[in-house]
């Protein structure tokens, strides 16, 4: 029941772990974005490495399988000259009954400097951060429905790259907010960075209770929700939603909540479209939009590597 101080910050108020965008001051978020800016230059040259994290060991602890996210973290770590170890725990120790913390303790004994953790349960990264030795930094690569801070940060980086000033924007997040760790992290980052209007657009079955308290305006219709929007953050729809009786079919979802050229036209003419990937074409987004000129989905991926390099560097240096 102890309400401890922010578990992400050390005594000097510096970032010790990156677990969630919630509760981080704008200065820390902006510092990550600014640092990422410098790493973009690195990713554009021939030698895409800098020696910053040479000699450091970064362990990717993926309790929930994911090739994309794990790969981007691996690339980011290697570009910082760090040593990377990938562990797909889903298969091995968990099935042998080894507890989460036992796994972490065993790995700590192997002199890890940083853990990048993905887990299917909300709060897993916080639990690990509470129990690692003080020198080890933890990055949350996604825990249950709770948070995916690096994804939100790369989305913020992308928005700033194209739109420059957060204070003038109307941003809409569309899709399964209820189950989305990306959406939660995006909402906290957007409100912290001063975006004056954040909207969520979803059917009632895909919205969490009291979501308005997070500082968002709630819409159930795309037609109203997308009007005059500058940035569209699309979320992926999982098949399970039909099975758990929250939605009847992907087809009906696409008709009312999928992003088509027509619906996109309701937003500002220079609105940008983001998606964390992987996309379900024809479910939450139309191919014409995904591949169209307003889509910034591919640049998101490049920016994602720079943002993760920034996060790792800042943590390792604190």
């Amino acid at each position: 029941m102890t309400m401890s101080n922010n578990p992400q910050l050390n005594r000097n108020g510096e970032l010790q772990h990156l677990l969630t965008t919630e509760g981080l001051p704008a200065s820390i978020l902006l510092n990550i974005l600014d640092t990422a800016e410098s790493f973009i230059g690195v990713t554009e040259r021939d030698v895409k490495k800098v020696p910053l994290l040479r000699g450091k060991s970064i362990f990717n602890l993926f309790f929930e399988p994911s090739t994309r996210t794990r790969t981007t973290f691996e690339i980011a770590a290697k570009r910082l000259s760090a040593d990377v170890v990938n562990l797909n725990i889903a298969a091995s120790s968990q099935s042998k009954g080894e507890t989460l913390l036992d796994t972490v303790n065993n790995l700590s004994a192997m002199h890890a400097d940083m853990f990048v953790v993905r887990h299917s349960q909300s709060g897993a990264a916080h639990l690990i951060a509470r129990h690692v030795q003080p020198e080890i930094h933890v990055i949350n690569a996604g825990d249950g429905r709770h948070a995916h801070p690096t994804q939100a940060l790369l989305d913020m980086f992308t928005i700033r790259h194209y739109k420059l000033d957060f204070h003038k924007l109307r941003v809409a997040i569309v899709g399964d907010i209820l189950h989305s760790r990306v959406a939660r992290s995006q909402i906290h980052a957007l409100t912290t960075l001063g975006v004056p209007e954040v909207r969520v657009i979803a059917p009632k079955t895909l919205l969490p209770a009291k979501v308005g308290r997070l500082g968002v305006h709630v819409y159930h219709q795309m037609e109203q929700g997308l009007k005059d929007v500058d940035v569209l953050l699309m979320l992926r729809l999982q098949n399970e939603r039909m099975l758990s009786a929250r939605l009847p079919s992907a087809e009906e979802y696409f008709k009312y909540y999928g992003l088509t050229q027509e619906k996109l036209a309701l937003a500002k003419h220079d609105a940008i479209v983001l998606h964390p990937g992987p996309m379900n074409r024809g479910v939450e987004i139309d191919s014409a939009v995904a591949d169209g000129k307003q889509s910034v989905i591919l640049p998101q991926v490049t920016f994602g590597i720079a943002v993760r390099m920034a996060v790792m560097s800042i943590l390792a240096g604190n």
Partner: protein
Amino acid sequence: MKLVIKGGRVIDPQSQLDAIMDVFVAAGKIVGVGTVPVGFHANREINAKDLVVCPGLVDLSARLREPGFEYKATLESEMEAAVAGGITSLACSPDTDPPLDEPGLVEMLKHRAKGLNQAHVYPIGALTQGLKGERLTEMAELRDAGCVAFGQSDMPFTNARVMMHAMQYASTFGFGVWLRPQDASLANGGVAHDGEVATRLGLPAISVCAETVALSNIILMAKETGATVHLCRISSAEGVAMVRAARQQGLPVTCDVAANHMHLSEMDIGFFDSNCHLVPPLRGLSDRNALRAGLLDGTIDAVCSDHTPVDEDAKLLPFGEAEAGATGLELLLPLTLKWAAEMRIPLVAALAKVTMEPARILGIDAGHLSPGAAADLCIFDPDQYWKVEAAALKSQGKNTPFLGMELQGKVKYTLVNGNIVNQG
């Protein structure tokens, strides 16, 4: 042995007594309250100056973990914890392994408990075989073996027809039916209250509807079958309102709340504190306030500990995976005192909620200090603070949201049948 408890502040809710006086015990019974019985010569004396002397506490729900869960806790440790908490009578939950659905198991449990010579144990028997909600248990046989009422613990009925028959059958014999109002399919997979905290933390949520829909079913069926129903662990404002309305319509339903829910809300989950993973979940502040008001106005009859010792490994997991429950026998008294102090309720009224009221619900002669009653007493220092930490708890369960906090109210002596079974 002839014992005199001298100079304590004697509080007996049943007779509305709250005065400094002596209490006299002989042959395991109370033989005098205030007045010395003729020819009484004490051979033992307890100095109760500045202490409160009240009936031993009656706890409506404790998981003793035997049989089946001995790695979590044993009868020895938990019975010691009970008397350390000033509890002299407790009802234990049927969800042991195997569940208490066979007379033999009940007899063995009672026998084991009796042999420890500590608190009186009143088993709640399973309503259905294996608690599966399909076939009825031999309730009459179980009553003969010692069960005082029947329930399903946390295992909800999924078949309403079976629930109705269980209530009708119990009602035939006048047996009490104890039910937790939580609809299984609505609660499905949820681990926290469907409110702002679950939304922020991304925790699968349990809507208040899970409680109110189940309550509605139980109340309607109680009316229909005439069963004597006790509702276990109310958690929401709407739930309290429904119970109040049912009572106003004359339905003889009783209701309890867990001590933790009197004080805590979803906010206390903080950064995923798994000690706050409880069933039912900690709900919003307005729900908590409604529970406190409900206990005050009598809609809620009693407070219980809902004692659930959980081993450390089962709590050191992400919130949703952590086993639900909190240790509670040793916190029932201080948490009740805390509620009384915060709501400015006189001790004589507050202590009723953990003595005479739960005794009435259990249908046992306990929770009062009348001459002739069994000498089951709790003597405590209402002002003394103690720190809730592992070393201070006798229970093997150290899992409580109050870990690390200081609470007021320290049990100094506990007597069962006139014997001092705990000295703090």
